[in-house]
């Protein structure tokens, strides 16, 4: 029975994979753009999921990492005129590691609700710093425009939407593979243990603070990867990338997709971004509708889309028995 199910599963994932791989390039330009942004968001939501879904730390500061990485790219390419993509990406990630290493030490001193409030405050502080003291560098509300697509130093050009889409897809596959490894590793096992019962983990001999700290930095790095991709993809970075509202979006997509599940972030990014695009073409009240969708998910589909899919699978299995 499980073989039937797993073959169904692999056919389904192969079909979804093939659609992303083969179908997207033949679609119109707007669909390629939409698919690219969905994949970038799915990395971002996955990073938040590592922290919130797996480690149990609800953070409202995820945009701080996405935004700092995106701004690093924008400033380095447009102001410092650095064209080497690898150097830019490396510096971007280094910035994120430094910021997360610093704020992590402070934020992890407190737990639960207080942790969330502190991450929210840090996010806001970073946003304010980018807006005012660093205004010359970040151009305040105007943001930084005209970020050129990266040069990989290979014979392929990423100037077209389709080629950049494939680039993003490859990075996403790498990121998701690393997530997969992390979740199945002893470290992944331990962070879920900390999420479920932290004081017991301490009694078993785990330095729970260090685990949470590592998870916080890892999560920041993946947000940074997504932020870097976004800056190149969008060609324009503005302060809303740093704003806590965008951290809220990560939580929203996570809940819709299925918190604490591997594929949940992809489902969430797909549903959220797709619906926003579709609904926005009919009405300007997307935010209201987004709220209603969120309430419906929390009330009736606690496990989000991934949880719903799993329960359907279970039901099918029961019927076959």
């Amino acid at each position, binding site marked *: 029975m499980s073989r039937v199910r797993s073959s169904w599963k692999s056919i389904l994932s192969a079909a979804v994979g093939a659609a992303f791989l083969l179908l997207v390039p033949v679609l119109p330009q707007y669909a390629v753009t939409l698919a690219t942004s969905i994949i970038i968001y799915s990395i971002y939501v996955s990073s938040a999921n590592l922290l919130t879904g797996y480690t149990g730390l609800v953070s409202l500061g995820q945009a701080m990492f996405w935004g700092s990485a995106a701004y690093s790219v924008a400033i380095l390419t447009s102001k410092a005129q650095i064209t080497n993509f690898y150097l830019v990406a490396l510096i971007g990630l280094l910035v994120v590691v430094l910021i997360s290493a610093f704020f992590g030490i402070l934020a992890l001193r407190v737990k639960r609700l207080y942790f969330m409030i502190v991450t929210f405050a840090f996010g806001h502080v970073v946003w304010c710093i980018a807006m005012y003291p660093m205004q010359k560098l970040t151009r305040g509300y105007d943001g930084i425009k005209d970020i050129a697509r990266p040069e990989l130093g290979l014979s392929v050009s990423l100037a077209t939407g389709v080629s950049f889409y494939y680039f993003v897809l490859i990075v996403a596959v790498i990121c998701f593979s690393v997530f997969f490894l992390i979740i199945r590793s*002893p470290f992944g096992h331990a962070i879920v243990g900390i999420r479920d019962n932290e004081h017991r983990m301490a*009694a078993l*001999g785990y330095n729970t603070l260090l685990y949470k700290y590592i998870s916080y930095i890892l999560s920041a790095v993946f947000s940074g990867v997504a932020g870097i991709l976004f800056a190149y993809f969008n060609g324009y970075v503005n302060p809303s990338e740093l704003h806590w509202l965008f951290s809220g979006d990560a939580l929203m997509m996570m809940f819709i997709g299925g918190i604490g599940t591997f594929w949940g972030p992809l489902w969430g990014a797909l549903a959220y971004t797709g619906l926003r695009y579709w609904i926005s073409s009919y009405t300007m009240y997307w935010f209201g509708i987004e709220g209603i969708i969120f309430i419906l998910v929390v009330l009736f589909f606690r496990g989000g889309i991934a949880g719903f899919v799993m329960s359907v699978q279970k039901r099918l299995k029961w019927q076959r028995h």
Partner: protein
Amino acid sequence: MAEALRVENLSKFFGALGVVRDLSFSVPADQRRVVIIGPNGAGKTTLFNLISGEFPPSGGAIYLFGTDVTRMPCYRRTRLGLARTFQITDLFPYFTLMENLLLALQAHDPCAYGILKPLKSYSHLYEKAAVLLKEMNLWEKRDLPIGSLSHGETRLVEILLGIAASPKILLLDEPTAGLTHSESLWLANIIQNLLRDVTVIMIEHDMSVAFELAERMIVLHQGGIVADGSPEEIRENQKCREIYLGKSHE
């Protein structure tokens, strides 16, 4: 003989309430079974929480094998060979029995921070877990979620989690809580056989289990020690009788 544990003038206040007051005792490393008894509210679990490092004491000091651990976090005390179980079963409800045990086993393994290799590839952990589970007749249930085990079995898993890291001192907080009398004796028997080389300090309410296991008994009352001695001495101690049975007014 070296001391496994020494507690000096230990006290803990919650506001004005002194739960543990100026308590001192030591346990030599060759002592195997110390049972702590006392009525509800005597400060037994608080004493355990202080020794294991759940929260810091208000005063006094704690030494593990001669090392001052008074301000040491929980996880570092476990490195010195301390482990504990909890009075209220405190496991990982979303994990299977096997996964629960693996968490305890990997805590002190070099792979504890391993991040890029799957847990499944560390076969030595699975082998250790298999030995423990087979010994306890729980092997068949290894893939069941912890919630589907019986209460007696979860009490046993509590102990398994405690001994997984091969501790030198094990604090058992009422291992038989919620068990019937015959189940308690069954568990006491397992403790007796399983933990031959470990200094076990346990809190116990079931007096028949307490007297059966103890080679030394400490009686706590209102945060202080009222008696400390062999089971026979405690049985004869007039003060202990008064605490448990009330003063006789003849």
